[in-house]
């Protein structure tokens, strides 16, 4: 567990949160972007963490992320590893006793982390999301080899070689095309994606 980064002059080494470091508007931003307006009603029961297959890999538990968002620890949340480990299994959303759609909140946090430049350049998950967006923007649909090469260019080729047998298998079974296909109305898809991105930046 990582301590919250902050110092208060004249205080000791425990993680003391400086009041000036808290971004009171952060929770509003996250609620608007995610469409989940119930964050303030979280009772911190930890059902999300207890149901999450990946919480043990995270630096902050999902429950703690919610509280950090509410309290305005924007930098710590956006720079955290936790938000990128969500595999979108939706168990937390299904089980949350307050009906909070936590998966949507984590998506919003990922978008904010990218938009505000918090994501580490070589980190695999941000690289994947970015490349996915670009590939779909270009072809109007997914093109797997393009996606994998793009991710490799961003986060290193080691991963690509490890996944090669899987890729070959998919090719053999006709699950993956060697050459990209473009959808007919690619312009419309692009316009849609641009509007989404603009909305994100404006917020």
């Amino acid at each position: 567990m990582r301590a919250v980064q902050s110092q208060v002059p004249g205080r000791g080494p425990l993680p003391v949160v400086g009041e000036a470091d808290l971004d009171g508007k952060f929770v509003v931003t996250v609620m608007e972007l995610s469409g989940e307006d119930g964050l303030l009603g979280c009772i911190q029961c930890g059902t999300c963490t207890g149901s999450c297959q990946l919480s043990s890999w995270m630096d902050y538990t999902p429950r703690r992320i919610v509280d950090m968002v509410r309290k305005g620890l924007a930098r710590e949340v956006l720079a955290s590893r936790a938000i990128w480990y969500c595999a979108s299994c939706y168990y937390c959303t299904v089980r949350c006793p307050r009906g909070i759609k936590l998966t949507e909140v984590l998506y919003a946090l990922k978008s904010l982390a990218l938009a505000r430049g918090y994501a580490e350049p070589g980190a695999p998950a941000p690289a994947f999301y970015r490349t996915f967006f670009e590939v779909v923007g270009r072809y109007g649909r997914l093109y797997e080899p393009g996606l994998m090469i793009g991710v490799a260019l961003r986060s290193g080729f080691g991963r690509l070689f490890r996944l090669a047998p899987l890729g070959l298998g998919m090719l053999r079974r006709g699950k993956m095309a060697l050459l990209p296909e473009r959808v007919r109305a690619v312009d419309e898809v692009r316009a849609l994606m641009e509007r989404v991105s603009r909305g994100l930046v404006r917020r």
Partner: protein
Amino acid sequence: MSEVRIAVYVCHCGTNIADKVDVAGVREFARRLPGVEVARDYQYMCADPGQELLRSDIRERGINRVVVASCSPRMHEATFRQVLESAGLNGYLFEMANIREHCSWVTEESELATHKARALVAAAVKRVRFHAPLEERYVEVNQKALVVGGGIAGIEAALKIARAGKKVWLVERGPSIGGKMAGLDKTFPTLDCSACILTPKMVEAAQHPKITLLSYSEVEGVDGYVGNFQVTVRRKARYVREEDCTGCGTCYQKCPKKVPSEFDGGLSHRKAIYVPFPQAVPNVPVIDRSNCIRFQTGRCGACEKFCPRDAVDFEQEDEFLTLEVGAVIVATGYETFQPQEAPQWGWGRYENVLTARQLERLVNASGPTGGKVLLRRDGEFTDEVPKSVAVLHCIGSRDENYYPYCSRLCCMASLKLAHLIREKTGAQVYSFYIDIRSAGKGYEEFYTRVQAEGIQFIRGKGAEVLERDGQLYVHAEDTLLGAYREVPVDMVVLSTAVTPAPGAERVAQIFGIQRGQDGFFLESHPKLEPLKTATEGIYIVGCCQGPKDIPDSVAQGAGGAAEVLSLLTAGRVQISPVVAEIDAEACSGCKVCVPLCPYSAIKYDEERGACGVNEALCKGCGTCVASCPSGALSCRHFTDEQIYAQIEEVSSL
């Protein structure tokens, strides 16, 4: 009609109204309305000085109509009517304009709120002009009472009424009274034995000369009104004659058919002819027809052959009784959440995952294991004692996927079970909680005691229970550590939510009780009238109104008895004069209104060739008035003239 002289009072209600509505402006506006003699605004019209204003204006300025613009008539209409009466004016020459609930509380902008207040006041002023004096009527109150539900709340209510010398019928749906409390082992926070404190009350209820116990019976319908109810009760066939049976138990020893016991939560078996538990009152068995071999195949009949008193009677049929009572207490109790709806906690899948109610039976000396906490394997209890047990709080409670409210008693019940398990087995007990709610006398002290006994408290809701290699694990976040945990345990106890009783909807329909969003019965005021309902003379006590522990249920039972006794002792009850009336000359005798009346208050009179209204039954709902094709029906205090005047005015501003 003599000259109409109207007084208008605009209430500030502290800041409740005055913060949004320009009360002085509304007052000035009212002053200029036709017929208005006096217009005032005042801080609190319902307080003594406010009432005095009204009285002195009536006396000194010859006022004969009054409008108060304040809160809802539900709140203070009766108050102001009494003020009018005390000043010698008929209480019905009064109209209330609701500028709080309907206006200041729900309007954002001050200007719009003031505009609406003006419209409501103008409408009330126009309407009150057409009001006529009406006389209150009184009816006699029948001196008997009915209590529905024989749990601890119902028993307490019945005993209190009976001890005051009034006749009580106590109707219980199941074969025995005792309710949920009969299934508990110890009770928090004092740990006295539940049966030891309950059984004497059950016996007293059955033997009290003023109480007639109708067990295995259900209320089928209610007619009448406060003071004079006619209640139809179905006495379900027991197939055992109560008057002949001595409760010797031969029948259920001889019965060959085993059925999972409802009372033990399916952890043991009963027979097809059975008493639900040894201390049952009455101690008379009942035959569960759907499981009886004799009823299903025509053979067997062992119980009948062996009964030394010839009390078994397969020919018995349901009987119907009509009871005449003055008041009714509904104490139909609750159910607990059945966690098979929620597979994540493993109940029904893993046999050592139990509900709290099942565990109550395990720790109880008369339960399926004789009071031992034992593990199960392949559907049978072993001799093995669990070395570790997890108690999961809030299963189904505080959860929007199931029941959003806090079930209130389960924190304490969970603490009690944690204590009993620890005491009986020495097991490591983990308590997975969100918040410990121990508000109650001696409750926090009990929590402290259980903490000191070494129970491991983990602040985090048990998210799921999974079995791996024959070992149960509770997955949860230890939120105070900020750590994910998978705790291996031998047994899991689910503290399940308190839910409305099955059939609550039907009970509500029969007695004219409203239900809240959560399905529990709705009291007529959440603070000041917790036992009354929307139907006068019908009271609710105990868990049918919402989750309650034993002390609260007992207190409510006694409170319900006090409500009934004050009604019965008064001897007569005031009936509203706001009822429908029929102009017999105009009535064509078409009888359209007769079947429409929800209170069966209208009868057709052959001789006169016209319909007539029974004023004691009529509630003034107006259904008949709207249906009458010849305009012969009208409702007092809601005449066409009055309503049109009000509508016209409210829509003209």
